[in-house]
Structures are given as structure tokens and as C-alpha cells.
């Protein structure tokens, strides 16, 4: 078989694959993987494909990848990754709360009338 007929798995020629490899940066692969975690993570956070264990794995994996690649990519892309992870975290927390009753490990208590945070004139602050 002639060289030009060899096919890489994605359907591109071996020469094309070799050319791509010459310019490919590891950071590109990391970003690609991060994109995969984001897509799959959001998919596992809701609907019929909901699987919170998998979603959590996607969040944690994204969290591990992001600092590795932060200095190798544009600030805008780094921000996008951070925002996506934050969005997944918030969606995850919401999903957990939908699944479980509030009040957590101890027996549910009646609704308290007061707020958990101080009003404007009450310093709950440093000083």
C-alpha cells in the first residue's frame, strides 16, 4: 500500500497527521480534554443521563487540569474554563440539594424566623 493511502483513525492521512503533530501543543490536548469534561460533566448533571458520581469526577478532573494549563493559554480561555467549572459546581450543588432533604445530618428543624445573616447595621464584620 502506498504511503499516501495510509489512513489515521480519524480519516486523515498519515502525512496530515504527522503535520498536525508537528504543530500540536500539549496545552491544546489539555484544553480538548477539559472541553470533554465540561460537555460530559454537564450532561451527567441533569436529565436522563444524570449521574452525580460521574459529574463530580468531571468537576474534579477539570479542577486538576486547569492550573496545569493556565499559564499556557490565553487569559480569556483560562477564564472560560474557570467559569465552566464554577457553573458545574453550582449545578452539582443544586442537584445534590434536589436529591436530599435540607437540614442535613440531623433531624429537620422547623423554619426559623430570623435570618442567618446580620442586617445592615449589625456588624458581623471584622470590626
Amino acid at each position, binding site marked *: 500500500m502506498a504511503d499516501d493511502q495510509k489512513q489515521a483513525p480519524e480519516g486523515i492521512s498519515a502525512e496530515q497527521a504527522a503535520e498536525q503533530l508537528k504543530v500540536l501543543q500539549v496545552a491544546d490536548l489539555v484544553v480538548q480534554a477539559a472541553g470533554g469534561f465540561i460537555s460530559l460533566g454537564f450532561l451527567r448533571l441533569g436529565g436522563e443521563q444524570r449521574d452525580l458520581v460521574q459529574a463530580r469526577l468531571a468537576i474534579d478532573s477539570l479542577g486538576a487540569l486547569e492550573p496545569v494549563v493556565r499559564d499556557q493559554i490565553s487569559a480569556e480561555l483560562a477564564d472560560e474554563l474557570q467559569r465552566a467549572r464554577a457553573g458545574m459546581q*453550582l449545578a452539582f450543588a443544586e442537584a445534590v440539594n434536589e436529591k436530599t432533604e435540607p437540614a442535613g445530618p440531623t433531624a429537620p428543624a422547623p*423554619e426559623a424566623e430570623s435570618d442567618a445573616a*446580620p442586617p445592615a447595621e449589625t456588624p458581623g464584620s471584622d470590626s
Partner: protein
Amino acid sequence: MGEGQTLPVDEQLASAREQLENGRDFTVAVEEEFALLDPDTLSLDNRFEELQALAVGREVEPHLVGELIASEAEVRTGRSESFGEAAAKMGERREQLSALAEELGVSLGASGTHPWSSWQAQRIIDTPHYRRNDELLRYVVWRNNTFGQHVHVGIRGADRAVQVASAMRNFLPELLALSASSPLVEDVNSGLHSARTQIFTRMFPRCGVPDAFADWREYEEFVRFLYRSGSISEHTQLWWSVRVHLSFPTVEVRIADAQPDLGESRSLAALAFSLVGRCARAIDEGEPIAWQPHRMIEENLWRAIRWGLSGEMINLQSGEVRSTRAAVEELIEWVMPVAEELGAACFLAVPEQNSAERQIARFEEGASLQEIYGELVKGSERVGG
């Protein structure tokens, strides 16, 4: 009784106890303090009153409060039923505050100290509370140009809340180490990771690590003693780094430096929240948590102030010394089952470097204080809610 106290002490304590007895577990509210800055120089800018006036009629108005100096603003999530809700509100509040600040023409800083603005140039805001603090504390309060993050966690039961707060004392150093964001102050690299703690927590009376109280009765007796002896005129003069609040049925964790990064701020709040939950769980199930003596916790607190996440901490049970990073990781592992139940687990993480470590690294690379602070301000502006 001073003019700050509106209810007689007995009534106040009875009301606080009743609120705690009828309180609800694990509601949560987060307060974040920000520096108001001149956008050109990034120096502190005394414009809180203008910011507050601009907020009138907007969604953020009831959540925006003054904090001691006119170059500081605080936003509060308000009571949230779950950690996820509080985390979402933290983002919203930051966005609302940023929008307001932009309209006014100020920038926002969110580290524990300002790197160069002098305390002499800051004006104390004109409220009865801060006028009283000014008269009472003088130099101690003038010097306190610091910015923190506080987390209120709802706890049902007065005795239980006091016991949770007593247990939480042990973990204040780890929380501080994780949060450290204030190595730069008074125009120098202080050599500390949390200069805020040295300026605020070490200088204020009734601040830092409190004594352990066995139950509500013991706590109440001490508060009563303070009022009776004229030591305090309002309960907020208990400035401890963890306290049972006397207006709200919460345990309030007050040790942390402010966070430039929203994600890290949520992560830190998640750890404080989960720790309170884990301590409550331990108390409910009879799991022993040793209430370490003040002098022992102080050893770790100093390590947190000086070396932050880069240092070492003592396991106060075994005496073993290990890296602070390992100590925080152990703590996260310990709280994880409760954090998972309460929806906070996915926020828990130890960053590769925390804010203090990043600032120190930049300083050692030769960056100026202005460059470092500029990057912090830009970073927190770029990633909003």
C-alpha cells in the same frame, strides 16, 4: 450598659438562646469585604458613602454594608438554605458590587490587606457603632485596614452551637492558612502570609482563638460578666475568630482573609461550612473532638500567619509535624462525608498555590507591589460570578 446595647442583657441572652433552640441546621450566609480603590493609582479611596447612595433602590442595596473605613465595602449573601445557593449568591453579589463600582468609577480589591495605602489616610465611617469603636479602641481600630471573609452557619440548639464553636477552635489555623492573602502591607513584603491576622486578630481585644465553653450556661455567664464589668457594651465586641452569634442562630467563622478569586472564596467558605457541619455531626454522634488548649492552637495559628499554606502544622493530638498542605488535605478528607450530604463537596480543594503564595512568588520574581496588586484587581474583575 453602654448605649450600644438596645435590649437589657438578660433579655438579649434569653432571646439568643431561644433563637438557637428554634434555629435550623446548616443554613448559610457568607460576607465578603472589599477594598474601594482609585482605578488609576489602585490606592484606597474613601468613597463608601457614594457607593451606598448609588445602591439605593437596587437589588444589592440591602446586602451592601459599610465596614469601619470609607474605603471598604462588604456584601452579604443573606441567609441561604443550602451551600449551593450561597455559592451562587456570592457570585451575584460580586457582580452587583462590580457593576456599582464601575458606575461610580472605583475599582475593587479583595486581599486581606492593601499593599501600600496608609491607615492614616483612611476615614472611619460615621455610624454609631463605628464611632463607639473609635472611642473605645483608638489606635487599635485605626490600624485595622483589613479585609476578611466570614461564614455564618445555622445551628439548632444553644448548647450544641456553643460546643460546635468550641470544637471549631482547633481548625482555625488550617482555615487561615488556606485563606492567607495578605503578605503585602505598609509598602513592604511583610514576610507573613496573613498580615491581616497580625494587624486585626492580634491587636483587637477578645479576638482570635476564644476559650472553649462547655455549654450555653458557661458561655452566657462569661458574656454576662463582660457586660456587668463594663468590658463590652454590645455583643459584637466579642471579635473572636469563631463565635456563637447572639443576634442570629448561627456559628460565625471569622478567621479567613478576603479572597481575590471567586472560585477560591467559594472553596474556602465550603470548607468552613463543612467543618461546622462535621463538628455538629461529631457532637450528635458522641464522637470525641478534643478541645485543644488555647496555647496549643496558638502555635498553629502563628504558623498559619507566618507561612500560610507553605509551612508546617502540628497535629495537636499526636504532636507530629507535617506540611500545612497535608493538614488541610486531611481536614478536607475528614469533612468530606458531611460535605457530600450538604452539597459542598465539589467546592472543596487545595489550590496549587493560594493567593499569598502567588503574590510572594511574583514579588520574588521582581514584580513591584503595584504590579502584583494590579494583577490581583484585574484577576478578580475578569472572572465574575
